[in-house]
């Protein structure tokens, strides 16, 4: 087996959001937050926006393309309707951003072209222990339960809890979710389901148990197998929402798209298993490189420097051959 530990460590570096991503995401969030809090009506409803989404859960990968702002209304009037909540949000954001705002079923997407990302701003009000947000897929809006901060807590717990996979003292969950997101992007591109759906699948796979491994390659291979099984089951059924009891995850993906995703992850799991089983490090590396694809900076899985692109190993003349480090004078020298 070739585990390619140093190469996987480099993968995690290559998919990590860069300083521009971090700076721009923070700036865009701060901008939208300021706009929302400055409005008199929203302020009277106790607007308290926070970051949610993959960026807040620290599972974002390079490039950060969207940031989610959860517009919590802590003191709304009891009579507030979902339609009214959406309309007020829309009014405030339209006034500030004009044609950069695009309304969606349950949120408003604000484009920040200078930062190369969008902000999804969604209003929400308290619903028992969690929240509900307005959804308007048709003319009449309704309240839909949600608990976005809970997923962040579950992710943190999964990553830190020693009952779940660790390598040394480092949690395996968050880095694996990032790698799964990258693999989704490489294999499915812009086709839904998106990163959140795959993240929920990864969470479920971890919860079901991945077995005991000791390397990134081992855990990722097991996770991909688990995700593939869950995706296949979810094509016919639903994907359970781990943040809300008796709730399932909705997705924009059609049945065909979900089947395509399941097929892609079955293939990914098989490719990973083949790469892990391979004893030649260069052959293995080529397979992993296929799986991870490229990002804006180039190949995500970089081949070791002693490997050719076709998986052959570079000439043995460049290796440290036996005798190459021998010092003729031996030991006990002084100068």
């Amino acid at each position: 087996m070739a585990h390619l530990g140093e190469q996987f460590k480099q993968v995690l570096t290559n998919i990590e959001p860069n300083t521009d991503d971090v700076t721009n995401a923070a700036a865009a969030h701060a901008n939208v937050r300021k706009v929302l809090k400055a409005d008199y009506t929203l302020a009277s409803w106790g607007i308290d926006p926070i970051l949610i989404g993959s960026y807040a859960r620290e599972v974002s990968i390079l490039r950060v393309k969207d940031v989610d702002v959860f517009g919590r209304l802590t003191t709304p009037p009891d009579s507030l309707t979902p339609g009214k909540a959406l309309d007020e949000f829309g009014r405030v954001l339209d006034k500030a951003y004009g044609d950069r705002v695009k309304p969606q079923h349950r949120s408003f997407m604000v484009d920040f072209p200078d930062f190369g990302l969008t902000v999804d701003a969604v209003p929400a009000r308290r619903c028992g222990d969690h929240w509900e947000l307005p959804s308007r897929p048709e003319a009449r809006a309704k309240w839909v339960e949600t608990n976005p901060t809970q997923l962040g807590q579950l992710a943190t717990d999964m990553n830190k809890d020693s009952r779940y996979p660790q390598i040394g003292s480092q949690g395996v969950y968050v880095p694996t979710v990032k790698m799964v997101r990258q693999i989704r992007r490489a294999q499915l591109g812009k086709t839904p389901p998106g990163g959140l759906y795959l993240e929920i699948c990864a969470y479920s796979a971890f919860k079901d148990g991945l077995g005991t491994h000791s390397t990134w390659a081992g855990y990722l291979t097991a996770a991909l197998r688990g995700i593939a099984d869950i995706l296949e089951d979810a094509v016919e059924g639903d994907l359970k929402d781990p943040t809300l009891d008796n709730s399932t995850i909705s997705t924009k993906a059609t049945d065909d798209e979900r089947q395509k995703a399941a097929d892609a992850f079955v293939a990914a799991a098989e490719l990973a298993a083949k790469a892990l089983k391979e004893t030649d490090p260069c052959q293995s590396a080529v397979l992993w490189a296929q799986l991870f694809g490229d990002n804006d900076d180039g190949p995500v899985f970089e081949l070791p420097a002693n490997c050719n692109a076709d998986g052959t190993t570079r000439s043995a003349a460049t290796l440290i051959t036996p005798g190459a480090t021998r010092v003729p004078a031996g030991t006990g020298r002084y100068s």
Partner: protein
Amino acid sequence: MPRPLPETLAERSALREDFIARGYGDDGHLLYGRVTWNDSAGVARRTAITIEITDAFPFAPPKVRLDHGAPGSDPVPSTFHLETDDALCLFDADTTVEGAAWRQAALLERRIIGWFERAAAGWPGDDDCDLERYLPPSDHFITYDSTALAGLTGTFATSRSAIVTRITDRQLTPPKAGSRAQRKDRRSLAWVGDLGAVTRPIRSWSDLAEALGTDVAEAERHIRGGYVDLLVLRYSRGAVHGVLVLHAALEPGRIALHGCQGADTSLATRTLRAGAPAQVLAAQRIAIVGCGAVGSYIADLLFKAGAGRLTLIDPQELRPGNLVRHIASADDVGKPKVVAVRNHLVRTGLPVDDVKVRIVSVSTPHDAIDITRAHTVIIDATADARASALLTFAADDVGARLVAACLQREGGIARVDRWPLLAGEAHVPPVPEHVVEGVRERGCGDLVSLTPPHSVSTAATLAVRVVLDLLAPEQHLPATVLEVLTPQDDAPYDHVGRLSLAPSASAA
């Protein structure tokens, strides 16, 4: 951070896979695992470690550290051979890289287990005196004379320059706390004390307090008084004695200690590296006649080797053109050569009280006989036909030990002859002279030999070896040592190396 060299990748990867196969976790940076070892009572212990295959691999061992964060790991008490970053010191610097144990997982693991077991047993037979390595380093360079300070404790004056702080042997009474003297005089003193036999490293003030016992109160009082910032502490490990020099600084709530580089300036330490012949040479009174290029290097080598009683004899002044082959520095241009050589010897820091200079030439039989009678060894580095003839005559007449050293053929041949001859010995015949178109230095009458500097040091080294051989109970070197440095046109000087010629009865 640069990536590992491609040539090293296969071996790095193989070592990682080997450890993974042994059950170690690998996050791409560190390998995580546990080793099982037996403590001194024979009870099995299990301790978590991390292994970092650094960029220097395989030319340096991986860094193996204690993994304090791992749950349920059997701890290791403070011990020697554990670096300040918790890395285990597993290999000494002289371990050969070829076939090194750190290049194979099984052998490295066995070495790690051995470390734990030796640590548990208190490092039997270990007498390394390097306690300063267990503390964060200070950039202070401290010198002290262990002979002058032997047996003393208390506060001592220091002399500070930009680079070196010297602990003097001037013991001072520290100012009384709160006194005007203390407020006025904030000179930094050093406190000298004794740790005795140490059984574990000093890593903190509390470790030091435990080792010093009741003396710690005095040391602490001086440090908190603000006038002591250096501690000079004698200690022993096994039969070996060492000195630990610490810089102590007051920080909020604690005294921070840093390990200084300390160097002993006692004569015994300064001459320690001179080697075995030092005692023999110290007993001699050696004349070096001719302090030009070869003579200056002979003086330097013999003096550093332990010959402290020298007489330097030469009538000439040092010229700028001499410097490329001479031991003296440009500061001494214009001075007599013997003075220039003595000034060089002064700069070694060794005592020169018994290095005499005579700005004279050897020009009469009386001169030569006086010299040979007053010295136990005479070195002829004159390359002067008349002076050499006089010294040869005088040595033979008096029965003195004489060593004549020279270079010939523009530095292509180095030759050393010695007297007296043993029964049946004779010197090798003279090397035939090759007439070379000469070069003269402006303002200097004699021809200049174009002998390169490295030939000079070779001839000097040969001469010193002959001197040492002469002083030994038995001679192993022939009466003439002749080395061809540059192949000549004529046999037998046409091959580089030591020449072994059958001595001729007609040799001079």
